[in-house]
């Protein structure tokens, strides 16, 4: 039984998330816990990206990291990027998902820079 226990704080947090073909998605910057789950609280999603990361700093730093990230959102939604826990296939040194790269929404900054800067350089 003990083999199935996962210490979310130590074995999930700050790990690299990768797609099924091994491409980087982001870090596990925070976790979403479902406290209303009938069998007791469970991890319901991995939160990744700058908005989730900002919450882990203190004071002005935290506000700055979160608010710059929120400004990049085109929609009014300001919640962190969320990866449902059902998409996770294995947890080891890397957290591997069962979906390919194409099925995931890209990170905000990545998308913005690809559209406005890097994507415009010849050969990109």
């Amino acid at each position, binding site marked *: 039984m003990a083999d199935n226990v996962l210490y979310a704080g130590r074995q999930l947090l700050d790990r690299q998330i990768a797609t099924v073909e091994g491409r980087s998605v982001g870090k596990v910057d925070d976790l979403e816990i479902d406290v209303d789950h009938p069998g007791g609280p469970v991890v319901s999603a991995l939160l990744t990206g700058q908005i989730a990361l900002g919450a882990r*700093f*203190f*004071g002005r*730093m935290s506000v700055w990291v979160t608010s710059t990230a929120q400004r990049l959102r085109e929609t009014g939604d300001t919640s962190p990027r969320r990866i449902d826990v059902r998409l996770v296939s294995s947890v080891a040194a890397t957290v591997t998902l069962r979906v390919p790269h194409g099925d995931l929404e890209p990170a905000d900054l990545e998308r913005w820079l690809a559209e406005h800067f890097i994507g415009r350089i010849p050969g990109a």
Partner: protein
Amino acid sequence: MLRRPGRIGATVLVVILAGGCAGSSRTDDDYRHKVANTAETLDGVLGTVQVALKVSSRAPAAYLSVTFADADDDASATAGNFDAIQPPSAAADQLRGRLDAVMQDTVSMLDDLRVAARRNRGTELAGLATPLPRLQARLQQLEGVAG
């Protein structure tokens, strides 16, 4: 909180970069040390020149030209730094005069060498460098003034 270590590091760096070697001098003793250090630095520059002259037929022209230019720049910078220090007394003033004379001769010889190397006139270098041993001797004397 998080930014503090970086800030300290940057401050230290700025202080050091801005500090340089020169500074004001309050006592004769301190001034003598500065004279000796300056003479030592110039002596080192002449050491470089001595080796460069020795290899003047064995090194590519461009390389030699840069070497002489670097030496000339070093000597001028050293002289400039030294001249910025005020001598604290009459005795110090006299010491300053002695070093100044050597510095001028050194810089003017290096200027000539630099031009000759730049214009690829390698054969003239040895002739232009005839004052070298005497300059070295004078500088080494001044290195001793700090006692």
